[in-house]
């Protein structure tokens, strides 16, 4: 079993009368890419700021690599790289100067900082802009510099707060590629409400709703659990089609059958049995198969279901 990088136990937090986080429990394991999903205003940023010690939980405890996070004291942050949703930099600095400042802050040796800058600027695609002032950077460039500063000290945990939400499709793609590249080196918490981004790079997710985690786990396990037992079948037409339909209707395991021309939507009470039977009657009736698909639950479906 891999070790816990972040563990959040019974954390609550209110702003005035508004209870944003209620008795939140969440675990992020080492070397995972954790998609932290929630609607706008669900409390994702609040949770991340509590992990970083910027906000104080009303109750509960948070630990990073087993070490308790203390509010206002940023000691645990030496293990963390943080990318805010809209990172802002000292505009008069160049990326290199900024990263050098970050290196000094985290206590890297000048030689190590230099070596890391040399590795990171190409990784985030800013080697061509290393001598330009941050002042003229686009949002995407700032986001990429943000990733570079977050990774500079090789943190065990990288926290990205909606890194793709404010970007155009190209910028989003670039950020996702960079994150996919560094997933071997560090654990990533990736907050977002863009589910397609999650499907692209995350292996585990936690869905936050009304201040609680309502669904948590490995994406493929979750999809198995929520598999809808629906089959879509497409066949070629022909003389044998009525025979095929007759045989299909007689299958006991099928609970619902809908036909649209040559497409059949099947709901079954026993997916393996129905699958075998369908293949058999396809053979027997001589109808040609065009498509056989066991429908995967979409992350979107899952999300809508659990946040309803």
């Amino acid at each position: 079993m891999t070790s816990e990088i972040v563990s959040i136990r019974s954390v609550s937090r209110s702003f005035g009368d508004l209870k944003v986080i209620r008795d939140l429990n969440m675990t992020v394991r080492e070397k995972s890419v954790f998609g932290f999903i929630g609607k706008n205003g669900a409390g994702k940023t609040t949770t991340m700021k509590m992990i970083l010690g910027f906000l104080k939980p009303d109750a509960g405890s948070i630990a990073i690599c087993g070490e308790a996070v203390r509010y206002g004291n940023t000691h645990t942050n030496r293990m963390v790289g943080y990318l805010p949703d809209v990172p802002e930099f000292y505009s008069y600095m160049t990326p290199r100067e900024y990263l050098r400042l970050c290196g000094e802050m985290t206590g890297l040796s000048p030689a190590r900082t230099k070596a890391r800058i040399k590795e990171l600027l190409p990784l985030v695609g800013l080697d061509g802009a290393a001598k330009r002032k941050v002042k003229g950077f686009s949002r995407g460039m700032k986001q990429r510099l943000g990733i570079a500063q977050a990774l500079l000290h090789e943190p065990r945990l990288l926290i990205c707060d909606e890194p793709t939400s404010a970007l155009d499709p190209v910028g989003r793609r670039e950020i996702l590629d960079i994150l996919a590249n560094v997933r071997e080196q560090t654990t990533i918490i990736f907050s977002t409400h863009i589910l397609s981004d999650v499907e692209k790079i995350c292996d585990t997710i936690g869905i936050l709703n009304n201040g609680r985690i309502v669904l948590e786990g490995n994406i493929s396990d979750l999809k198995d659990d929520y598999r809808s037992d629906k089959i879509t079948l497409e066949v070629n037409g022909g003389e044998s089609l009525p025979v095929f339909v007759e045989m299909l209707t007689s299958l006991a395991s099928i609970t619902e059958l809908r036909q649209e021309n040559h497409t059949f939507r099947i709901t079954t009470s026993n997916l393996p049995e129905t699958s075998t039977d369908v293949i058999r009657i396809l053979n027997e009736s001589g109808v040609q198969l065009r498509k056989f698909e066991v429908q995967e639950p979409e992350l979107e479906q899952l999300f809508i279901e659990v946040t309803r």
Partner: protein
Amino acid sequence: MRRYWIFTKKELIEQWKNFKGIALGCIVLIFAMLSPVAAKLMPEIFQSIDVGVQFEIPEPTFVDAYAQFFKNMNQIVMILIVFLFSGNIAQEINQGTVLMMFSKGLSRSAFVLAKFTAQWVVWSLCYWIAVGVFWGYTQYLFPDQAPMNFWVAMAALWLLISFLLALINFASVLANQSYITMILAGGVMVALYIAGTFPIMVDYLPTTLGNVNMALITGSATNNDVWGTMAVTVGVSIVFLLAAALVFQKKEI
């Protein structure tokens, strides 16, 4: 402590790059040079204006040069400092630039103290160079200058504005907006000046350090008259800075 120095260094570079330090330096130097010149030329300027009435203007002395210097520094430079430095902390927090520094282990108190330190270093550097320039220029125009208590009179104003910087930083962590900082800091200064109209308070008010300078230069006040006020000013400044660090430690960002 290491991070405090790193951030102070970054602040000093920033003062240079965003021209705030240069602006302050230039203005202070201009006043340092203009004050003796204005004192010297004032009678000639008056005489050149023909108002039809003949009036006697006494020959200017070095005392007029000092009076000009303290007047300018007290009013214009103080206002300039409030404008230049009030947004310093609020801006970093509202823009979020400091969040990444905090995530790299910079402590909140180091952040606040580094901000003050850099401002104070810039102010001190500008001021003492200006004092040197002022002295030299006054010496040139009024070779017989004989100020009494020169160093204490100069140090008094330096301490008063150092106090103002501590006050601005304390106000900055209380307010989230630079204009609120300005109102807070300006309000406190006005309150201190008003309190200064009560003779019983005078010895305990930092603002006295901006009123007593000419009395020191002319010798109608002695160094011993201001030691107490200086001690109070240093004490209150330290209290403001510690309070700023403590308040900011507890502040959610």
